[in-house]
């Protein structure tokens, strides 16, 4: 598996007064074989970042590197990144059987690559065989993938209309794996599913990730879900990563007030009442991404910011992102703790706190 690195990635839509910077200078590394969970509210740019990674959107600046090599996409080529979409009802072609949808993503020389070889015995010599053999191999590969995601191989002949939401999402995962990705991107894959089905999909994702040692970017607005699958958690707010760190550490010792707010809003076992936050910012409206606030982007909603504590006027003018590397969890907040002195060498600091 491989390491995916976002290096100062920005994505802008539109021009002039209606321009929108959906992703604004994101540095993020998905280390090989690990899961990075990305949380944030809708409109924070999570999905845009994912679409930029798989080449559906062009970054306007910055680079996306796979094992240190910038990604380049051309139509009709195998892509080293695969993505699972949010809505399993629109991500499968209703006019194609499940098997055809998966087979389409299987690379031409599937049996010679990665996953296929490891699991299929005696296929090493298949490369020399004719096309008929390839078709058979492809069908076998589809069956293998369906079984890998917990569906019967016979389901290959079914149309998506005959499957439930959870089953469709399994098919979508099988299709993403068919492309033998170096990095898998999961964009809100459980938010369209019922809670009873969400569990099976999350279990599947976790066991597949462990079995295949996938590098993965797991996007969700639900912190509890992200916590369950991720090694590293990154928090995004208005196009920027405001805090990133090892999952358990970040949840136990959150630095950014927005992370704290997300934690407070997430369900905990046995909570039966809503904890009231500071009344001054309790009903603040999410910021308009067309006109992001100057200074710290979170200041109009911040319970420890200038609206609550009048001495903190620097939040209104100074952007905390610039100094983020010096703080614990690379937090974009002036009031976060400093990074421990035993911090890593400068060249790794950008990629990991």
């Amino acid at each position, binding site marked *: 598996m491989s390491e995916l690195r976002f290096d100062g990635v920005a994505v802008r839509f539109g021009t002039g007064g209606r321009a929108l910077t959906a992703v604004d200078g994101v540095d993020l590394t998905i280390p090989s074989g690990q899961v990075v969970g990305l949380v944030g509210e809708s409109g924070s740019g999570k999905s845009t970042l994912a679409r930029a990674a798989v080449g*559906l959107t062009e970054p306007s600046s910055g680079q996306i590197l796979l094992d240190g090599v910038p990604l380049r996409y051309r139509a009709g080529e195998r892509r080293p990144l695969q993505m699972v979409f949010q809505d399993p009802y629109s991500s*499968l072609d209703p006019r194609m059987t499940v098997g055809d949808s998966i087979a389409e993503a299987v690379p031409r020389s599937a049996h010679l690559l990665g996953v296929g070889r490891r699991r299929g015995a005696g296929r090493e010599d298949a490369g020399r065989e004719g096309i008929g053999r390839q078709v058979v191999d492809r069908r076998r590969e589809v069956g293998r993938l369906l079984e890998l995601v917990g569906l019967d191989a016979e389901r290959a002949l079914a149309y998506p209309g005959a499957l439930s939401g959870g089953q469709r999402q399994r098919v*979508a995962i099988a299709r993403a794996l068919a492309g033998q990705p170096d990095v898998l991107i999961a964009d809100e894959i459980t938010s369209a599913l019922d809670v009873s089905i969400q*569990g099976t999909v999350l279990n599947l994702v976790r*066991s597949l990730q462990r079995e295949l040692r996938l590098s993965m970017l797991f996007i969700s607005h639900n912190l*509890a879900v992200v916590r369950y699958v991720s090694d590293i958690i990154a928090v995004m707010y208005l196009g920027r990563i405001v805090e990133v760190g090892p999952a358990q550490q970040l949840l136990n010792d959150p630095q950014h007030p927005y992370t704290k707010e997300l934690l407070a809003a997430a369900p905990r*076992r046995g909570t*039966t009442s809503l904890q009231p936050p500071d009344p001054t910012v309790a*009903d603040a409206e*999410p910021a308009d991404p067309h006109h992001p606030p100057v200074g710290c982007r979170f200041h109009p909603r911040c319970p420890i910011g200038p609206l609550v504590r009048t001495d903190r006027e620097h939040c209104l003018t100074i952007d905390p992102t610039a100094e983020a590397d010096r703080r614990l969890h690379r937090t974009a907040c002036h009031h976060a703790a400093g990074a421990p002195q035993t911090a890593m060498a400068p060249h790794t600091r950008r990629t990991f706190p």
Partner: protein
Amino acid sequence: MRARWIAVLRTPVGAGAGVLLFAVLLLALLAPLLWSHQASAIDTEHLLEGSSAKHWLGTDNLGRDIFYRVLVASRTSILLALVATLIAVVMGLALGCAPVLLGRRAGRLTTAVVNIAVAFPGLLLALFFAVVFGVGAKGAVLAIGFAGAPSFARLTQTLVAGVAERDFVAAARIAGVGRFRMLLRHILPNIAEPLVVNATIGAGGALLAFAGLSFLGLGVQPPVYDWGRLMGESLNGIYVHPAAALAPGVAVVIAGLAFNLFGEAVAKGFGVPAMIGPRLRERSAETMPAATDDDEAVLVVKDLYVSFPGPITPVRGISFTIGKGEIVGVVGESGSGKSLTALAVAQLIEPPGQVRAAELSFLGAPLLGRLAVRSTAAARRRLLGTSFAMVFQDPMTSFNPTKRIGTQLAEGAREHQGLNRRQAMARAIDRLRAVRVPAAGRRARQYPHEFSGGMRQRAMIGMGLMGAPALIVADEPTTALDVTVQRQVLRLLETIRTEDDVAILLISHDITVVAQVCDRVLVMYAGRIVEDLPASELATGARHPYTRALLAAVPDLDTPLEEPLAVIAGRPVDPAAMPSGCAFAARCEFAEDRCRSEDPSLVSHGPDHQVACWNPQGTAAWQARYLGSESIRTGQL
């Protein structure tokens, strides 16, 4: 696919048009083979004659029989129209699909070209091309084909754009599918139906246009003839022998109708799914007691059924009562009937859906049943209008996008409370302030799109507060919102309850949301309430295996990381095939023979706690049996 075509042919219009079209095409095929001799036979003794026994429709200036000529001309007319349609379709498809194949910049150029071409009237374009390509059949075919292409291209472009932004196309791109393959495998199959329909209708138009061109002398030239030319030739004698001029006209009309009607029938068949089953007439509900004995009750529901023709009954006999200032949550998976329950309470089930209940009363007034006196109907409407509020899931679609928020809030108050415009607006601003919309006065003059999702949901709740509501029914009010905003909205509902003593019925699929704000929780499965318990007992005292499984299935911040998440095996019950026993039995690990044969009813288990289960968990009997075994099956893949 095939079933839909057959369904189209089963409708009266579809069958009629199908037969007509088949007859017209058969005539076009056979007429020249059978009658071309009669049609070209020159009879110099009967020039320009009217209808007679020998020549039904008379003869032309060379004494040829017009009836046979009209029949034989059908092949030329229809063939040329079809060729022209083919040209239009092929060119339209090529132009319409070009943006997919050529990439963004060249695609934009083709779109612009098509947009300009669409602006020219079709017939004008056809005349223009007819002059360019020269007078004659070939020129006319090309002219009509090219003239028809822009509109077809435009249609294709729109359809392609609609499909191209769907996720499966993005997924195919990521999978490395090339542009051409993408077009053939993913895009064209998904837009084929509307294109086929429009091509059929287009053929009718081409037929008419061709007749027009030939009539003007720009179409087919002698000695070839089609209906348009026959019409043109007979026009001079129209006052003497009207039949000779009218016959080819009638032929054009019949053939054009065949194509157009068939296209319309197919369009109708593919556009709107046919309703299954007979339409049921709404019956008045069973007689209901006029009022309840419980004065504190805001809403009383007894034995509520919601059914649809099929017949399926998604809500099967549920009963509950909501007291003043109480927040009651309803949870369940999709398809459990929770939203239909909310809609039934709000009187929003549309026919053919049918609501039945032993009692359904709001503030002591019955909601179901036909009312004899008109004034009571109006009173009921006013009662619902002022004391009852509904908040829907999607705040994006529950406001009219063309009207200002303040105006929309004021509308109800003017209708039900008789306020004038200024008073109503003042009340609207006051209510927006009450739901904590910042700068309420300014925001009341804004349009819905200027509100964020959370603010729009607040405004929706504010709309419910325009009267003095006794009950707010909120159907998944926070599902479309972010977690932090969700908390704000829930807190707002809680505050309204405390301040104004409003009862709230909160429907949600998320048991954690319900646990956070509700006093009482109703757990629904397959159209029944399976457990009714105080929210405070949810975490520790749930008895029904389904409630427990639901609680365990939702990961929270304390879920152990090393174990797989608990899952509920199996699928929800199909409402069309309800099992005879407990609906949850097939997915329940504690199910016994009795569960599969007998349906348990709600039984009291302590104060304010009811469970419908033969095998409630956590009881003394249960502990004796299952001590040591896991209460909830931790799912494997």
